[in-house]
């Protein structure tokens, strides 16, 4: 396996992640979360590495990676703003702000629709990293996107 020797640092990090989770049951999801957060994606190489480490087939790991919204196959280095577009935020007017949000985000910021941040009495809501923003209006949403 060529990539294994080519990218020693990367495989050391992967090894570290797998080792950290060893000894407990059913560690695939926690490992994938750790890989996603370390590399910004779970690509084919990482899938193969994890599969081998856990004695699973690549198809099994790929099936899991592709099932969940939180895991991505390609990295995206743009800053991300998650915008809640579920019913409660719709009731508070998020849909009317989406066009303005998209315009200011352009290609620089990734706008990701999410379905519920759990602040449903105070929408429209957004999340940047682990920071939440509530009671947004068009102006504050645009400023938030500009600031990331």
């Amino acid at each position, binding site marked *: 396996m060529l990539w294994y020797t080519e990218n020693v640092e990367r495989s050391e990090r992967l090894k570290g992640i797998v080792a950290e989770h060893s000894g407990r049951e059913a560690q695939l999801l926690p490992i994938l979360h750790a890989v996603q957060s370390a590399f910004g994606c779970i690509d084919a190489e990482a899938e193969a590495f994890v599969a081998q480490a856990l004695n699973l087939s690549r198809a099994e790991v790929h099936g899991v990676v592709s099932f*969940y919204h939180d895991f991505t196959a390609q990295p995206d280095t743009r800053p991300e703003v998650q915008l809640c577009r*579920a019913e409660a935020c*719709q009731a508070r007017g998020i849909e009317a702000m989406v066009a303005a949000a998209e315009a200011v985000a352009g290609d620089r910021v990734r706008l990701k629709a999410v*379905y*519920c941040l759990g602040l*449903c009495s*105070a929408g429209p809501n957004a999340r940047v990293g682990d920071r939440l923003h509530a009671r947004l209006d068009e102006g504050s949403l645009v400023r938030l996107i500009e600031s990331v």
Partner: protein
Amino acid sequence: MSVVRISDDALALACGADEVAAAFERAGYKVERVSSWGMHWLEPLVDVDGMGFGPATPEDVAAILDGSSVKAIGRIEDHPFLARQQRLTFARAGKTRPLSLEDYEATGGWAGLKRARSLEPAQVIADVTASGLRGRGGAGFPAGIKWKTVAQTQGERKFIVCNADEGDSGTFADRMLMEGDPFALIEGMAIAAHGVGAGQGYIYVRSEYPHAIAKLEAAVALAAALVAPFRIELRKGAGAYVCGEETSLLNSIEGRRGEVRAKPPLPAIEGLFGCPTVVNNVLTLAAVPHILAEGGAARYAALGMGRSRGTMPVQLAGNIRHGGLFEVPFGISLRELVHDIGGGTASGRPVKAVQVGGPLGAYIPPERFDLPFDYEAYAAADALIGHGGIVVFDESADMGRLARFAMQFCAAESCGKCTPCRIGSTRGVELIDLIRAGGRQADSVELLPQMHNARKSARSREENLVLLEDLCETMHDGSLCALGGFTPYPVLSALRNWPGDFG
């Protein structure tokens, strides 16, 4: 000097609670970070010796301290929003520091677990059965019967799994409980473990709740010695709504795709890793410490109506003036909840509809606001209580668009295992689009003479509506789980009550 108390609940933080707390600290005050009272329109709510001020900003600090603030709401506990509630599960809300074992114990914490451990496991289950507690995740299955099944099933290992994948829009009670009173959940799980003989528990929390995850991780570590030999592990979801379904959640913990399993076998018999497993919602487990405390089961059973016993933490959300957490015994009407307590819409326009029970719940028009909050009454009205979330819409809502959204959401979140859900939802989106666009003409291929079975005339609106109802019936009766099975509720309720919104 007075102690200033400000919530560190995610909603309070999103509304600027940290900045307000920092301003009080700069003014030389000690700030205690407590759980949220659940009066969300007043967050960040500042509590100075029991007197409330909100929604506060850093600029309000000087006026709050010299007593001239216009944001004073008087004694917090006397606020009408709280005075009308009967809080059992949320008894500590607003009063304690979430990660303080000292606060937890001083407010009756661990009393339920101590008493449970002094009883035979069968007696613990009998208490839960006697309380009438039903699963708060949506299905309303009696908790005592589920526990009894797990207790009586032979298994080398047994598990307690807490479903904290609160994905429904309009719900936040699980989040508030996990962030505000995490030890109550841990205590409830430990009691369940004693009742059924489980050694290990898992809490499956959705990844959209980073604050709840952080609090739970800390709380599990702090309480480890107190609940030992029972062990609890946290598992973070990965953004799949369907993982709130119990069998799909079990697959996800096991590290598989979150696909729904066919039932039977029930998880109580073959659950996590094939072992007997209790899967309960956060609110179900968090209600248990109160029930197991001395006389708790009888107190709980005395509340409510019909077969819905005890209290329900109702979540008032969407376009509502006074949104937040409202825990009351079952039986309260929607009119009281939306108008008397919630104060109508935040926009000031008339209420058009409320959706009860999340994305799979029915849209209910104001004419039916007499409906009492009760599992059976809602089921009889083709509606769901679900997880107790109420989303209010004003007259600007387009119900046809919301019906389409319900189908679209189902299509996006379907696990793909069963056909009615996977394909029916996509056909549903197309069909609603078609109806709203006024139907379609047969295309050139359909019109070819050799296409014997193709229709030559366009379907009428009525025929399309019949087709939509038919599709909904197939999804309702043929889907493996509630995602495909209940998506017809919002669609059909929107169609029947607001046909004018469908083009």
